[in-house]
C-alpha cells in the first residue's frame, strides 16, 4: 500500500467512526469543511507520529497541513526530505 493510500484509509476510518459516509477525495477539505472536528486532528497526529516517524514537537503544528489527504501526504514528504 502506498503512503497516500494508507493515509486515505486512515482518514476514511476516522470519518466512518463519525458516521460520515460521504465520498473521500484526496483534495477534499476535512477540517475547514467541518467533516472532522479538532479532536480528530489529534488522531491524525498520533497516526503520523506512530507510522511515519513525524515529530510534531520538532516541526510545529499547523492545522492547515492536515486539512486534506493531499496536504497530509505533502507534510510527510517534506518531513522526510528534511531528515
Amino acid at each position, binding site marked *: 500500500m502506498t503512503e497516500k493510500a494508507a493515509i486515505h484509509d486512515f482518514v476514511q476510518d476516522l470519518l466512518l467512526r*463519525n458516521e460520515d459516509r460521504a465520498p473521500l477525495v484526496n483534495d477534499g477539505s476535512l477540517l475547514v469543511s467541518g467533516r472532522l*472536528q479538532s479532536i480528530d486532528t489529534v488522531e491524525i497526529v498520533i497516526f503520523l507520529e506512530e507510522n511515519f516517524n513525524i515529530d510534531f514537537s520538532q516541526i510545529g503544528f499547523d492545522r492547515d497541513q492536515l486539512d486534506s489527504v493531499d496536504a497530509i501526504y505533502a507534510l510527510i514528504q517534506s518531513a522526510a526530505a528534511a531528515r
Partner: protein
Amino acid sequence: MSCEDSFRSAQPAEKALSRHPGVRQALILPDGAGAWRALVVPGDAWIDEAMDRERADEAVLRRWQKTYDLTQSPAAAATAPVGFNTISWDSSYTRQPIPAEAMREWVETTVASIFELTPRSVCEIGCGTGMLLMRIAPQCDRYVAADFSSGVLRRVREQLATVDSLAGRVELFERRADQLEDLAENSFDTVVLNSVAQYFPGRAYLLRVLENAARVVSPGGHIFIGDVRSLPLLSGFAASVELFQAEGSMSLADLRDRIHNRVRRTPELVLSPAFFLALPRHIPKISRVEIRLRGGRADNEMTRFRYNVILHVGPETEQALDLPFEECPAVDVALASIQARFSEGREPFALRGIPNVRVEQDLEALATLDSSDQLATADDLRRELSGRPARGLHPQDLLDLESAVPGSQVLLSWAGSRADGSYDAVFLPDRRAAAGGVNMPLPELPDLLHVANAPGQAAARAKLVEDLSAYAREHFAAGSQLSRIELVDALPAVASERDGLAAFLTRPCL
C-alpha cells in the same frame, strides 16, 4: 386503566428487568399509546466492561492532552502577551479564533467571579495557559496550579519568569486532575476548575476529582467550576452552530440530521446543573451549591451555553434566605420595573422564569425545526426567525443594576436547569441579607433524569439497549410491548415523584 393500576401491572416486569446485570434500576411506565416504556439506570460495571472503561478514559485524556501540547507548539504561543495566551480558543461557529475582546471579557468576568470568593490560597486544576493564574496569583499567599499538558505548562513557566513578584508564590505541577491526592487535607481556601470539566472522560471521573477537591478545601472555602457546558441547552447549542454554518439552500431535513449528529458526536462532557445540585448527597463536606449564569456582553458560546458553579465547603453558619419567587413581569416593561423596584425598595425580591435573550433565537430555531412544515430550507428558517421580536431580558442588563445601588447584589441562577434557557433572579438591595445564600428554584422532575452526556459510551449504551430489548422479550410478557428503552442517570426516588413523572410522561394516562 388508572396510573395506579398501570404501576401494579408493571411491577413484575420492572423486577425482571432489574435482574439484568446491566441494570442498576428500572422503571416501567405506560407510553401513552397502549404499550410500555422503560427508564433504565445502567449498571456502571456493565458499561465499564462493555466499553473497556479504563482504556477508553485513558484514550480520551491522552487525546485532549495531545491537543493542548500541539496547540502550544507554534511560534505564536511563545510570543503571546503575558497572561493572555488564547491560542486554541476557537469558535465552534466560525472555526476561527474567538475575538480578543470577547476573550478578554471572558477572562475578566471569570476572575471577578473568583475574587468574590476572596481567595488567599488557591489550587487551580487545569490552569491552561495561565490566564487566570496571572491575574489571581498576585492577590494570593499561595497558588498551586496543575495541568496535564507539558506544552501549556512550558508557556506558563515562561510567563512566570517575567514577573518577579510571583517568584516562589506559584507552584506548578504537570499532573492530571485525578492525580492530586497527595495535596494535604484542608490546605486551600479555594479550588478552581475553569473550563476543564468538559475534557474529563465522564461524570464518574469528575466526581472523583471533586471529592478530592472538597477534601483539600478547608471549611468555609469554595470550589469554583467555571465555564461548564450546559446539557439542557446542548440541542440549542447544536442548532445554533449548525444553522450558522448551513448553506442557505440546505434542506431542513439535512439540518435536523446535522443537529442530531452534533449532539450525538459531542466529544466533550456536557453537564446539567442537576449533577452539581446532587453533590451534597455524595460529598457531605459540600453544604451548598450555586449555579450562576456567566456575566458579559459578548455574544458567544460561552455566554450563551455555559455556566459557573460555586460549591460551598463546610457547614453553613447562616441560614439560607427563603424568598417567594414571582413570575417575571411582561418583558417590554420588565427591565424598567425591576430597576425601579430595586433602586427604590429596601426589601429583597426574586423573579423566576425570566426569558433569556441570549439563547431565545437558538431555541426558537430548534422548536421551529421540529414543528414547522411550511419551511423548506435553512434560509427560510433564518427569514422566519429574523422577523420575530426579541422577548427576553439580557442577563448582563440585570447584573448592571448592582452598580446603581451601593452594597447591593443581583444573583442570576440556572439551578432550575430548564431547557428553554430561562433563569431566576434574586435582587438584594443589601447583599448582607443573603450571607447564607438564597434557596433558588430547583429542576423539575423530567429534567433530573439526565444529568450528563456520555462521551465515548455511545456503542456500549446502544449495546445495552439492544441486549435489554432481547432480554425483555424473553423474560416477561410486557416485554413484547416495550416501545422504548431509555437510559437515564436517575430515577424518581419517592412515590409522589414517581406519580408526577408518570403523569408527565403518559399524559393522558391510560
